[in-house]
């Protein structure tokens, strides 16, 4: 394994791709997590981030979700690539 570049910063909290089953209006209903499929019980909060339109535009719709096992997770839908990601907000 090659040694990592010691001068480079390694970002933390990188988003991880996530499979999400959605319902009407694109609402997340089920998340395919490592430990199986979990049902979304509540959508606690939704917010959108639009940044850097001058460079490589970033457009994300974040959602903080309460799952059926009691966990709280943050996911977002990449509005440009139309793909879901898991990330701590």
């Amino acid at each position, binding site marked *: 394994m090659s*040694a990592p570049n010691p001068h480079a910063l*390694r*970002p*933390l909290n990188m988003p991880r791709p996530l499979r999400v089953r959605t319902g009407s209006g694109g609402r997340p209903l089920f998340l395919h997590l490592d430990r199986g499929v979990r049902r979304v019980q509540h959508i606690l909060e939704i917010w959108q*981030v639009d940044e850097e339109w001058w460079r490589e535009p970033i457009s994300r719709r974040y959602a903080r979700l309460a799952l059926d096992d009691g966990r709280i997770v943050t996911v977002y839908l990449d509005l440009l690539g139309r793909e879901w990601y898991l990330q701590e907000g």
Partner: protein
Amino acid sequence: MASLQQAPPLLLGVGEEKEGPSLASPSLPGVPGSRRALCVWLPTFELRLELARSPELDATSVALLAPGGGSRHTVWQVSERGAEAGVLPGQLVSQAVSLCPALTLLEPDPAHYDAAQEEMLETLMELSPVVEPAGRGRIFVGTDGLERLHGPPSRYPGLALQALLGTFPRPLVAATRIGQASGKFGAWVAAARAGPGSPVTIPDPEIPSFLASCPVSVLPVEPLMVQRLERLGITTLEKLSSLPEPALVSQFGSQGRRALEWATGRRVDPVRPLHRPRPIRASLDFPSPAGRTETLHGALDRLLDRALSRPARRGRGVRGVRLRADLEGGKSWSMEVVLREPTAQKESIAFPLRARMALSPPPRAVERLVLEMFRFGPATSQPGFFHRKEGGGREAGGVEMAEGAVPPSLREAVKELKLKLGHSPLYRVVEVDPWSRIPERRHALLSFEP
């Protein structure tokens, strides 16, 4: 042919340090220099480098913007076509564009110019080991004792141009001016009088008569002194030479005496071999271009931590620091700070760097930040009078440690791991852009190398 008035001022590094291109570069103390000097000068070095990089601009009106202009951008260097249209160095960009609407404006790329200057130095070192830079695009080569190696001195200008041709594009070398004389002052005045490709060599007996016709503005003295001389009607070195030394000393002090010595050709400043202490560099690559001041300040702090903890730095205080950035889009930015006294205290180095950065921040987002400590002095053991130890210090083995200090045991452990694995497997979490709306940009891991 370049007139002497167009040439940038030459400072021979006597007395206090001054702004502008200077010969006050660190040279080996006590080492005798070379009396015979060759001055290699490429006027508007930076603009010519830009034109060599983009030859399609060669026949157009081009102006290079002054570095660090803040919000008031001014013109630094102008191509011949631009000058014909009335654009002058020092003009505001708005004025320049109104005079020449077709003017192409180029942002400066200091890292590129510094790299070219280094290349020029290295190339001329093939001719002689005694080379001394005097600002970008101007280098003195000591030519004493080269006869057995290169033949008679008349061959040296040609050899210098030939060496440069091996490294630089032909148009750049063709614009180079070379002067040869005893002492740096004579060589410089000869180079400023020389045409591109037509070197000027001044034999010793002819130096006084050659200098006599030169204007007083060629003297490497304070501009105020030149202005006063001109107001008094002393416009040439010949007129200056006719004045009695006591009168000049009473008017201008030791500067007056030196001016007289230069004007008469009595003073010969030898070319001294450049002493370049190995710089200490630390760099940081941003995962995504960083534009916020807080992010850059945070990165600067981390670079200072790393550079100051290098074994090569220990026992020495830092006197000169350069901060360089690779910008988004391919250009670069740099600034330099020379401290009043050598220091190993992070805050004493960071403060002037931050202040300079606030005055002329990088014009675009930064992809890579490089800190270079290039000048050193004896470490000051005495802490500043106003330096008070902050609370929250830690302890290691019963000894109180300063904030940010690394316990020796941890240092040893990391050293061993590095020997075994080839890199440090330890990281620390650092703030990159804590207020970013993009979560992965807020914090990052940085290799822990105490």
